[in-house]
């Protein structure tokens, strides 16, 4: 069996997820390179191979030009995997979708706001533009989950994301719940798979992995309000990583 060729491409993102791909234990990296051939990876190599089987896409789609590029990649790739929060849910980029272009451009770019190359439209997940075969969520991704997905793809098995929320991993680690320390947390509605890394270090889960399939949104809003959050702060928790909605693409 010849090694599958894999390629990485980035759109609107910080490229942190690709750094996580590289941030492996040495033996894992060796095993990875034995199993696949990397033909295009701006963060790591200078080759720009255009012949690949699996494309990993980091970043959200936020300009018409991005659409053309991602469609071309989709045509070439046998499998297309969205890598990280921006690619899976629109991520932090989609926060801007609730403001007018003028407002967010002035806020972010100040005196350069009029530069034409800074024009963008509503940020959207890759799946809003092309078919995505699989998603590896998270800001950044969990490097072990990346390896798990690669293994599944190599074995021809559909990779599985956990269907349960972060609380499961949190309780398996016997963590003190943030709610019991008088803080709040999005863990009850957020898809697990990160090993509850934020609560394990005493930080709230902010929902970077997106929601579970059937999140109890009303209950989460009630619990946040009960713990003293204003209606506005409740919304901020929901929109930090999960602000994108289908209507954004029509505006």
């Amino acid at each position: 069996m010849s090694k599958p060729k894999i390629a990485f491409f980035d759109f609107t993102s910080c490229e942190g997820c690709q750094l996580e791909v590289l941030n492996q234990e040495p033996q894992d990296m060796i095993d990875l390179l034995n199993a696949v051939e990397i033909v295009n990876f701006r963060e790591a190599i200078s080759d720009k191979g255009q012949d690949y089987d699996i494309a990993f896409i980091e970043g959200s789609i936020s300009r018409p030009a991005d659409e053309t590029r991602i469609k071309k990649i989709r045509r070439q790739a046998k499998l297309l995997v969205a890598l990280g929060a921006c690619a899976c849910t629109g991520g932090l980029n989609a926060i801007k979708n609730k403001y007018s272009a003028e407002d967010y451009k002035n806020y972010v770019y100040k005196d350069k706001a009029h530069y034409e190359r800074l024009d963008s439209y509503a940020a959207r997940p890759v799946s809003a533009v092309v078919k995505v075969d699989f998603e590896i969520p998270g800001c950044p991704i969990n490097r072990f989950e990346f390896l798990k997905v690669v293994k599944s793809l190599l074995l021809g098995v559909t990779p599985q994301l956990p269907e349960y929320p972060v609380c499961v991993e949190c309780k398996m680690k016997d963590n003190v719940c943030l709610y019991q320390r008088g803080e709040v947390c999005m863990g009850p509605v957020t898809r697990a798979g990160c090993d509850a890394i934020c609560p394990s270090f005493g930080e709230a889960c902010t929902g970077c992995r997106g929601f579970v399939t059937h999140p109890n949104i009303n209950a989460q809003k009630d619990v946040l309000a009960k713990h003293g959050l204003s209606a506005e702060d409740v919304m901020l928790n929901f929109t930090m990583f999960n602000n994108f909605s289908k209507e954004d693409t029509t505006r």
Partner: protein
Amino acid sequence: MHKAMTRAEVALFAENLVKTNVVYGVVAKDKQFAWDRISDHKEMVLDYPTTISSPKKYFLPPTETLIEFKLAANPDPKFVNHSQEAILFGMHACDLYATKMLDHAFEDTNKDPNYLEKRKKAILIGVSCMPDPDCFCNKMSVDEEVHNEAKISKKEALYDIFFKNIGHKFLVSVGTKRGEELLAKYAKPAEATKEELDQLKVVEKKRVESFTNDMKLDVDQLVKLLPKTHKSPVWKENADKCFACGTCNLVCPTCYCFNISETVKLNLAEGSRDRDWDSCMLPQFAEVAGGENFREHVADRLRHRLMRKGLYIKEKFNMSGCTGCGRCYRNCTADISIVKMFNRLKEVSENE
């Protein structure tokens, strides 16, 4: 029947144990308490209200490898079992009761070597407690079973040794032959005096009076009530608030469900079969091949969980499936209380 030890003597006993044995005990964790491996006896606490998860995590770890194999014509499976001689120091009565219940579960039909060997090699040392507002073990027949005179005199108690805090001292009850040997090896306790035994009665009376829970049903009443509640509106009422997050199962000392999965290493040459804690509150728990889910709705799952706690386990092993430890409620982010649910089921059923 009781020996007496000063706090200093108990501390020395613990120190000696920790020096020469693998000891698990309770340590402070950010204003709460958790079970952990003890390396310094000074970290171990004996006066604690409750722990986040229960000591079941020692016998049934959250994640555990069962078999290692090769991806080859001959998979050459190796069974993995990390059992060792160990002492669990500081178990409350509810957790001793739960451990007995788990023993039944893992001895039943398919004997589970990983659990049972750890269990066989473990010495259980209990310690008395004072109930917090969410404890309701007094309704769940825990003390009757743990402090059962007949079992203790036959040296077949649920604990090997049990320390009863009477303030300035601990009165010590020995529950098994092993406990007797361990105590003799590491301590020289005096017989309890008449005054000390009287003091124990005072403390025990105070403990019984300290329960403030509102639980309106005992084990036998639950068994009578629950079969009538399958269609109760109470399940849905609570499901609307529930995250289906599984926390209530994971922290419960009597929940023993696990999920088995096989993982292959990146070299695609070796792999392992592992088991992780599972939870009947999670959406995929009752899902089978083809996508059919026998308990698709959260209300169905809540009903199943409470049936296990109040009915099925009692029918199967003649022990309560719930010890009344209160962990599920304390740790539920949605504040769903098992006591309130049981009481409400009773109330609704009486008004039907």
